Protein backbone atom coordinates (compact mmCIF):
# COMPACT_ATOMS: atom_id res chain seq x y z
CA UNK A 1 0.00 0.00 0.00
CA UNK A 2 2.78 2.40 1.02
CA UNK A 3 4.85 1.47 -2.02
CA UNK A 4 1.83 1.96 -4.27
CA UNK A 5 0.96 5.22 -2.58
CA UNK A 6 4.35 6.83 -3.06
CA UNK A 7 4.84 5.37 -6.54
CA UNK A 8 1.55 6.83 -7.69
CA UNK A 9 2.21 10.11 -5.91
CA UNK A 10 5.49 10.39 -7.81
CA UNK A 11 3.87 9.42 -11.10
CA UNK A 12 0.96 11.83 -10.70
CA UNK A 13 3.17 14.78 -9.76
CA UNK A 14 5.40 13.97 -12.73
CA UNK A 15 2.34 13.83 -14.97
CA UNK A 16 1.00 17.15 -13.76
CA UNK A 17 4.36 18.81 -14.33
CA UNK A 18 4.90 17.10 -17.69
CA UNK A 19 1.32 17.90 -18.73
CA UNK A 20 1.66 21.62 -18.12
CA UNK A 21 5.18 21.85 -19.49
CA UNK A 22 4.54 19.93 -22.71
CA UNK A 23 1.42 21.93 -23.61
CA UNK A 24 3.47 25.14 -23.49
CA UNK A 25 5.34 24.01 -26.59
CA UNK A 26 2.44 24.61 -28.91
CA UNK A 27 1.87 28.10 -27.53
CA UNK A 28 5.19 29.86 -27.47
CA UNK A 29 7.20 27.50 -29.64
CA UNK A 30 9.13 26.51 -26.50
CA UNK A 31 9.97 23.08 -27.89
CA UNK A 32 10.60 21.70 -31.33
CA UNK A 33 8.25 19.06 -32.63
CA UNK A 34 10.53 16.18 -31.74
CA UNK A 35 10.98 17.26 -28.11
CA UNK A 36 7.31 18.00 -27.71
CA UNK A 37 6.42 14.65 -29.23
CA UNK A 38 8.75 12.86 -26.83
CA UNK A 39 7.27 14.66 -23.82
CA UNK A 40 3.71 13.79 -24.92
CA UNK A 41 4.75 10.19 -25.40
CA UNK A 42 6.18 9.91 -21.91
CA UNK A 43 3.12 11.68 -20.49
CA UNK A 44 0.81 9.13 -22.11
CA UNK A 45 2.88 6.14 -21.00
CA UNK A 46 3.16 7.28 -17.39
CA UNK A 47 -0.54 8.19 -17.40
CA UNK A 48 -1.44 4.72 -18.62
CA UNK A 49 0.79 3.25 -15.91
CA UNK A 50 -1.32 5.14 -13.36
CA UNK A 51 -4.40 3.66 -15.00
CA UNK A 52 -2.91 0.17 -14.75
CA UNK A 53 -2.08 0.70 -11.07
CA UNK A 54 -5.50 2.08 -10.21
CA UNK A 55 -7.28 -1.21 -9.62
CA UNK A 56 -4.47 -2.80 -7.56
CA UNK A 57 -4.47 0.44 -5.59
CA UNK A 58 -8.17 0.15 -4.85
CA UNK A 59 -7.76 -3.49 -3.84
CA UNK A 60 -4.85 -2.61 -1.56
CA UNK A 61 -6.94 0.12 0.02
CA UNK A 62 -9.76 -2.33 0.65
CA UNK A 63 -7.35 -4.78 2.26
CA UNK A 64 -5.77 -2.18 4.55
CA UNK A 65 -7.19 -0.98 7.82
CA UNK A 66 -7.41 2.79 7.36
CA UNK A 67 -6.91 4.95 10.45
CA UNK A 68 -10.08 5.86 12.26
CA UNK A 69 -11.67 8.90 10.68
CA UNK A 70 -11.69 12.12 12.62
CA UNK A 71 -15.05 13.20 13.83
CA UNK A 72 -16.95 16.10 12.35
CA UNK A 73 -16.11 18.14 9.27
CA UNK A 74 -12.48 17.09 9.19
CA UNK A 75 -13.40 13.44 8.84
CA UNK A 76 -15.95 14.23 6.15
CA UNK A 77 -13.44 16.41 4.31
CA UNK A 78 -10.80 13.68 4.45
CA UNK A 79 -13.22 11.05 3.16
CA UNK A 80 -14.35 13.33 0.35
CA UNK A 81 -10.77 14.22 -0.60
CA UNK A 82 -9.70 10.57 -0.63
CA UNK A 83 -12.73 9.59 -2.68
CA UNK A 84 -12.03 12.46 -5.06
CA UNK A 85 -8.40 11.43 -5.43
CA UNK A 86 -9.40 7.88 -6.34
CA UNK A 87 -11.96 9.14 -8.83
CA UNK A 88 -9.49 11.54 -10.42
CA UNK A 89 -6.72 8.96 -10.59
CA UNK A 90 -9.12 7.03 -12.83
CA UNK A 91 -10.72 9.99 -14.61
CA UNK A 92 -7.42 11.64 -15.58
CA UNK A 93 -6.01 8.71 -17.59
CA UNK A 94 -9.42 7.91 -19.05
CA UNK A 95 -10.05 11.46 -20.32
CA UNK A 96 -6.42 11.52 -21.55
CA UNK A 97 -6.91 8.32 -23.51
CA UNK A 98 -10.28 9.54 -24.83
CA UNK A 99 -8.75 12.86 -25.89
CA UNK A 100 -5.90 11.05 -27.63
CA UNK A 101 -8.41 8.87 -29.50
CA UNK A 102 -10.47 11.90 -30.51
CA UNK A 103 -7.42 13.87 -31.66
CA UNK A 104 -7.77 14.90 -35.32
CA UNK A 105 -4.10 13.92 -35.70
CA UNK A 106 -5.22 10.35 -35.21
CA UNK A 107 -1.87 8.95 -34.19
CA UNK A 108 -1.81 5.40 -32.88
CA UNK A 109 -1.34 5.12 -29.13
CA UNK A 110 1.67 2.82 -28.90
CA UNK A 111 2.76 1.46 -25.55
CA UNK A 112 6.19 -0.18 -25.27
CA UNK A 113 5.42 -3.15 -23.03
CA UNK A 114 8.33 -5.07 -21.58
CA UNK A 115 8.83 -8.43 -23.34
CA UNK A 116 5.77 -7.99 -25.59
CA UNK A 117 7.15 -4.96 -27.38
CA UNK A 118 5.07 -2.05 -28.64
CA UNK A 119 1.34 -2.62 -28.48
CA UNK A 120 -1.14 -0.26 -30.13
CA UNK A 121 -4.01 0.59 -27.84
CA UNK A 122 -7.39 0.82 -29.53
CA UNK A 123 -9.07 4.17 -30.05
CA UNK A 124 -11.91 4.52 -27.59
CA UNK A 125 -13.82 6.91 -29.84
CA UNK A 126 -13.56 8.22 -33.41
CA UNK A 127 -11.41 11.27 -34.20
CA UNK A 128 -13.45 14.44 -33.93
CA UNK A 129 -12.13 17.97 -33.46
CA UNK A 130 -14.98 19.06 -31.19
CA UNK A 131 -14.82 15.97 -29.01
CA UNK A 132 -11.06 16.49 -28.74
CA UNK A 133 -11.48 20.11 -27.64
CA UNK A 134 -14.06 19.06 -25.08
CA UNK A 135 -12.07 16.12 -23.73
CA UNK A 136 -8.76 17.93 -23.50
CA UNK A 137 -10.51 20.76 -21.66
CA UNK A 138 -12.07 18.20 -19.29
CA UNK A 139 -8.61 16.66 -18.82
CA UNK A 140 -7.24 20.11 -17.97
CA UNK A 141 -10.04 21.06 -15.57
CA UNK A 142 -9.72 17.70 -13.81
CA UNK A 143 -5.98 18.33 -13.56
CA UNK A 144 -6.69 21.55 -11.63
CA UNK A 145 -9.18 19.70 -9.43
CA UNK A 146 -6.50 17.08 -8.81
CA UNK A 147 -3.99 19.75 -7.81
CA UNK A 148 -6.53 21.19 -5.40
CA UNK A 149 -7.21 17.81 -3.81
CA UNK A 150 -3.52 16.96 -3.60
CA UNK A 151 -2.93 20.27 -1.82
CA UNK A 152 -5.78 19.53 0.59
CA UNK A 153 -4.45 16.00 1.10
CA UNK A 154 -0.94 17.24 1.88
CA UNK A 155 -2.32 19.90 4.21
CA UNK A 156 -4.34 17.25 6.00
CA UNK A 157 -1.35 14.98 6.39
CA UNK A 158 0.75 17.87 7.65
CA UNK A 159 -1.94 18.76 10.18
CA UNK A 160 -1.96 15.19 11.47
CA UNK A 161 1.77 15.32 11.98
CA UNK A 162 2.24 18.89 13.21
CA UNK A 163 -0.99 19.94 14.91
CA UNK A 164 -2.67 16.73 16.03
CA UNK A 165 0.72 15.07 16.61
CA UNK A 166 -0.68 11.62 15.84
CA UNK A 167 1.01 8.87 13.87
CA UNK A 168 -1.22 9.03 10.77
CA UNK A 169 1.60 10.38 8.62
CA UNK A 170 4.17 8.03 10.10
CA UNK A 171 2.01 5.09 8.97
CA UNK A 172 2.68 6.16 5.41
CA UNK A 173 6.38 6.89 5.86
CA UNK A 174 8.24 5.10 3.12
Amino acid at each position, binding site marked *: MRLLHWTMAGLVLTLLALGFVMTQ*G*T*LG*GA*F*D*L*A*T*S*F*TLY*QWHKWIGLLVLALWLPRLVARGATQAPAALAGWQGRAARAAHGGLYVLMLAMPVTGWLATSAS*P*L*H*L*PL*LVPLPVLG*PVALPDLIAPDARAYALLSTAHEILAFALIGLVALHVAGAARHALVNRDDTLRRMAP
Partner: protein
Amino acid sequence: MLRNSVVLCAASLVALALAPLSPAAAAAYRVETGQTHIDFAIGAKGYPVTRGEFHRFNASVAIDAAAPAKSQVAFDVAAASIDTHAPLLDDYVRGAGFLDTAHHPGIAFHSTTVRQMNDRTVELAGNLSLLGVTRPETFRVTVTPEGTAFRLVAQGEIRRSDFGMTGGLPLVSDTVTITVSTLALAQ
Protein backbone atom coordinates in the same frame (compact mmCIF):
# COMPACT_ATOMS: atom_id res chain seq x y z
CA MET B 1 46.28 -15.10 -85.40
CA LEU B 2 46.38 -12.89 -88.46
CA ARG B 3 42.67 -13.47 -88.92
CA ASN B 4 42.01 -12.30 -85.35
CA SER B 5 43.97 -9.10 -85.89
CA VAL B 6 42.05 -8.35 -89.04
CA VAL B 7 38.75 -8.83 -87.23
CA LEU B 8 39.93 -6.60 -84.37
CA CYS B 9 41.05 -3.92 -86.82
CA ALA B 10 37.74 -4.04 -88.60
CA ALA B 11 35.88 -3.81 -85.31
CA SER B 12 37.88 -0.74 -84.29
CA LEU B 13 37.17 0.89 -87.61
CA VAL B 14 33.47 0.24 -87.25
CA ALA B 15 33.55 1.60 -83.73
CA LEU B 16 35.36 4.74 -84.87
CA ALA B 17 32.95 5.25 -87.71
CA LEU B 18 29.96 4.94 -85.40
CA ALA B 19 31.38 7.14 -82.67
CA PRO B 20 29.97 10.46 -83.87
CA LEU B 21 26.55 8.87 -84.28
CA SER B 22 26.28 7.42 -80.77
CA PRO B 23 27.82 10.02 -78.52
CA ALA B 24 29.74 8.79 -75.51
CA ALA B 25 27.48 8.21 -72.47
CA ALA B 26 27.88 10.52 -69.51
CA ALA B 27 30.74 9.39 -67.30
CA ALA B 28 29.88 7.56 -64.09
CA TYR B 29 31.00 9.35 -60.95
CA ARG B 30 31.58 7.87 -57.56
CA VAL B 31 29.23 9.24 -54.90
CA GLU B 32 31.23 10.04 -51.78
CA THR B 33 28.98 8.53 -49.10
CA GLY B 34 30.54 10.43 -46.23
CA GLN B 35 29.78 13.73 -47.94
CA THR B 36 26.25 12.90 -48.96
CA HIS B 37 23.29 14.06 -46.95
CA ILE B 38 19.66 13.35 -47.67
CA ASP B 39 17.88 15.94 -45.55
CA PHE B 40 14.30 16.97 -45.19
CA ALA B 41 12.51 19.78 -43.44
CA ILE B 42 8.85 19.95 -42.53
CA GLY B 43 6.76 22.53 -40.74
CA ALA B 44 4.13 21.99 -38.06
CA LYS B 45 1.67 24.49 -36.65
CA GLY B 46 3.11 26.22 -33.61
CA TYR B 47 6.50 24.57 -33.90
CA PRO B 48 9.81 25.54 -35.45
CA VAL B 49 10.74 23.58 -38.57
CA THR B 50 11.51 19.91 -37.93
CA ARG B 51 14.57 18.58 -39.72
CA GLY B 52 15.84 15.09 -40.27
CA GLU B 53 17.86 12.94 -42.58
CA PHE B 54 18.07 9.48 -44.10
CA HIS B 55 21.32 7.66 -43.46
CA ARG B 56 21.25 4.59 -45.71
CA PHE B 57 21.08 4.81 -49.49
CA ASN B 58 22.55 3.71 -52.79
CA ALA B 59 23.26 6.40 -55.34
CA SER B 60 24.62 6.59 -58.85
CA VAL B 61 25.53 9.78 -60.64
CA ALA B 62 26.63 10.13 -64.25
CA ILE B 63 27.70 13.55 -65.41
CA ASP B 64 28.41 14.92 -68.85
CA ALA B 65 29.88 18.35 -68.22
CA ALA B 66 29.82 19.25 -71.92
CA ALA B 67 26.23 18.17 -72.39
CA PRO B 68 24.50 18.36 -68.97
CA ALA B 69 21.25 17.07 -70.43
CA LYS B 70 22.86 13.64 -70.73
CA SER B 71 23.61 13.45 -67.02
CA GLN B 72 21.74 10.96 -64.88
CA VAL B 73 21.02 10.59 -61.20
CA ALA B 74 19.50 7.74 -59.22
CA PHE B 75 19.00 7.49 -55.47
CA ASP B 76 17.57 4.52 -53.60
CA VAL B 77 17.01 5.33 -49.96
CA ALA B 78 16.18 3.04 -47.04
CA ALA B 79 13.06 4.63 -45.54
CA ALA B 80 13.70 3.08 -42.13
CA SER B 81 17.01 4.92 -41.83
CA ILE B 82 15.15 8.13 -40.99
CA ASP B 83 16.68 10.17 -38.18
CA THR B 84 15.06 13.24 -36.63
CA HIS B 85 17.32 13.09 -33.55
CA ALA B 86 14.32 11.89 -31.50
CA PRO B 87 14.11 8.07 -31.50
CA LEU B 88 10.48 8.07 -30.37
CA LEU B 89 9.49 10.35 -33.22
CA ASP B 90 11.48 8.22 -35.67
CA ASP B 91 9.55 5.13 -34.61
CA TYR B 92 6.31 6.98 -35.19
CA VAL B 93 7.32 8.26 -38.60
CA ARG B 94 8.31 4.72 -39.61
CA GLY B 95 4.76 3.70 -38.78
CA ALA B 96 1.60 3.46 -40.83
CA GLY B 97 0.56 7.14 -40.92
CA PHE B 98 3.85 8.21 -42.46
CA LEU B 99 6.59 6.13 -44.10
CA ASP B 100 5.04 2.73 -43.39
CA THR B 101 8.47 1.16 -43.73
CA ALA B 102 7.17 -2.33 -43.02
CA HIS B 103 5.33 -2.28 -46.35
CA HIS B 104 7.41 0.26 -48.26
CA PRO B 105 11.06 -0.11 -47.32
CA GLY B 106 12.45 1.97 -50.18
CA ILE B 107 12.20 5.54 -51.43
CA ALA B 108 13.62 6.03 -54.92
CA PHE B 109 14.36 8.86 -57.27
CA HIS B 110 15.43 8.17 -60.86
CA SER B 111 16.06 11.14 -63.11
CA THR B 112 14.43 11.39 -66.51
CA THR B 113 15.58 14.74 -67.87
CA VAL B 114 18.16 17.33 -66.98
CA ARG B 115 17.73 20.89 -68.20
CA GLN B 116 20.44 23.47 -67.83
CA MET B 117 19.20 26.73 -66.25
CA ASN B 118 22.50 28.61 -66.07
CA ASP B 119 26.13 27.66 -65.73
CA ARG B 120 25.70 26.62 -62.09
CA THR B 121 22.16 25.34 -61.99
CA VAL B 122 20.26 22.52 -63.62
CA GLU B 123 16.70 21.42 -63.27
CA LEU B 124 16.54 17.71 -62.58
CA ALA B 125 13.26 15.99 -63.37
CA GLY B 126 12.57 12.40 -62.50
CA ASN B 127 10.30 9.87 -60.92
CA LEU B 128 10.00 9.76 -57.18
CA SER B 129 8.65 6.56 -55.66
CA LEU B 130 7.32 6.74 -52.13
CA LEU B 131 4.75 4.51 -50.42
CA GLY B 132 4.29 2.61 -53.66
CA VAL B 133 3.28 5.74 -55.59
CA THR B 134 5.53 6.97 -58.40
CA ARG B 135 5.19 10.57 -59.53
CA PRO B 136 7.26 13.03 -61.53
CA GLU B 137 9.02 15.58 -59.32
CA THR B 138 11.68 18.17 -60.06
CA PHE B 139 14.70 19.32 -58.13
CA ARG B 140 16.84 22.37 -58.67
CA VAL B 141 20.48 21.38 -58.50
CA THR B 142 23.39 23.73 -58.00
CA VAL B 143 26.59 22.31 -59.42
CA THR B 144 29.96 23.43 -58.12
CA PRO B 145 33.11 21.98 -59.68
CA GLU B 146 35.79 21.04 -57.14
CA GLY B 147 38.80 19.99 -59.19
CA THR B 148 37.66 16.97 -61.15
CA ALA B 149 34.78 16.41 -58.75
CA PHE B 150 31.39 18.09 -58.55
CA ARG B 151 29.54 19.17 -55.47
CA LEU B 152 25.83 18.86 -56.11
CA VAL B 153 23.08 20.32 -53.99
CA ALA B 154 19.58 19.36 -55.06
CA GLN B 155 16.53 20.95 -53.52
CA GLY B 156 12.87 20.40 -54.16
CA GLU B 157 9.49 20.42 -52.50
CA ILE B 158 6.98 17.63 -52.57
CA ARG B 159 3.45 17.34 -51.27
CA ARG B 160 3.42 14.20 -49.19
CA SER B 161 -0.34 13.78 -49.59
CA ASP B 162 0.33 13.23 -53.33
CA PHE B 163 1.94 9.96 -52.25
CA GLY B 164 -0.83 9.10 -49.81
CA MET B 165 1.08 10.16 -46.71
CA THR B 166 -1.57 11.84 -44.59
CA GLY B 167 -0.38 11.26 -41.02
CA GLY B 168 -0.44 14.35 -38.83
CA LEU B 169 -2.29 16.51 -41.40
CA PRO B 170 -3.13 19.35 -41.03
CA LEU B 171 -1.03 20.12 -37.93
CA VAL B 172 2.06 18.72 -39.61
CA SER B 173 2.36 20.42 -42.97
CA ASP B 174 1.83 18.73 -46.29
CA THR B 175 4.87 20.29 -47.96
CA VAL B 176 8.24 18.69 -47.32
CA THR B 177 11.45 20.33 -48.48
CA ILE B 178 14.04 17.81 -49.56
CA THR B 179 17.69 18.75 -49.84
CA VAL B 180 20.24 16.26 -51.10
CA SER B 181 23.86 17.30 -51.14
CA THR B 182 26.61 15.09 -52.45
CA LEU B 183 30.15 15.05 -53.72
CA ALA B 184 30.55 13.20 -57.02
CA LEU B 185 34.13 12.09 -57.67
CA ALA B 186 35.52 11.43 -61.14
CA GLN B 187 36.63 7.82 -61.55
